């Protein structure tokens, strides 16, 4: 079942997470891995993933291992909901178009002063 059509608020970190997931839509990644790929600090990605999961754009599951045998806790893996990929791409496209327009008007918003 596809997720919510409106989706979460498309903040920059949210966009980075979605782009990271879209790089390989069939691939599952756990939180630390996603933060590296998305270029976000570790520990800050979980509210984003929770919102994406809440609106149905992302699914998660536990790693199927025996923690005692592997000597480490099991990971929580995330991947895009296949039924929501089109919604994700459309939302990113809308955001990119809006951002390009803003930056043309206000190039100073692209970063701090050198």
């Amino acid at each position, binding site marked *: *079942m596809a*997720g*919510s059509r409106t989706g979460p608020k498309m903040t*920059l*970190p949210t*966009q*980075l997470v979605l*782009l990271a997931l879209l*790089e390989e839509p069939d691939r599952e990644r*756990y*939180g*630390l891995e996603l*933060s*590296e*790929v*998305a*270029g*976000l*600090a*570790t*520990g*800050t990605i*979980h*509210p*984003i993933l*929770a*919102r994406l*999961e*809440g*609106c*149905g754009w992302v*699914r*998660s*599951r*536990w790693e199927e291992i025996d923690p005692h045998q592997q000597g*480490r*806790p*099991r*990971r*929580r893996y995330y991947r895009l909901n296949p039924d929501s990929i089109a919604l994700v791409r459309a939302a990113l496209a809308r955001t*990119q178009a809006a951002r390009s327009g803003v*930056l043309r008007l206000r190039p100073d918003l*692209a*970063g*701090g*002063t*050198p």
Partner: protein
Amino acid sequence: MTSHSALDLAVNRVRIRDLACDLDLARDAALTLSRVRVRARDLERDPGRARDLALTLSRVRVLDLAVTLARARDLANHLANDHVRDLARDLAAAHAHVRRLADDLNLNLTPARASDRARDLANHLVRDLARASGRVHALVNGLEPATVTVPSSPAVAGPRGARPGWMSRHLVQRAVWCLPSAHRARYREEFDAELAEIAETRGRVRQWGYAVRLVGRAVALRHAVQAAVPQREQS
């Protein structure tokens, strides 16, 4: 040491730790830029898709990186110290590279030219940030213990196979405690797995950074899970 100078030292220690966290973020983003460059070159078989993918990914990350570097540079400028002035210079250089990269991405360059420029700037950026990170971690390790109550000096990267430190585990438990009771078990296990991996592969500074950021984002995570619609799966 007078109480006033001890307080100044404690404030500077906190600022330097914030700087270390910002630099970690900036370095991670710069390494991601390098990976994006590699992926874009792999897609040269399909020039149209390569251009769109490389420009889209790079622009979003580069703008975020520019904001982070500006914040780190401004923070370094607040600290009156010769070593930190060198650090501020390194950060300014890194920020200038990022701004040039952002400007290039707004130009109508050919895919090959854009890829070459991005590669060169990303390589410069990774070197600048590695140098800046080294200065910051040397600063953190070189600070004397303060008489006020602050976290003790972080150790350099621990040996492989190290368990998470007690303070990091305590902070993670605090973060989990902020969550709704129905979600605590899941996130406790998830955070424990991530903290264990950080302890295994990185240092104590990274463990603390991870745990502190979890605590800082605990309220946001609480709101996010409480607002979840019924589609959210609990496996």
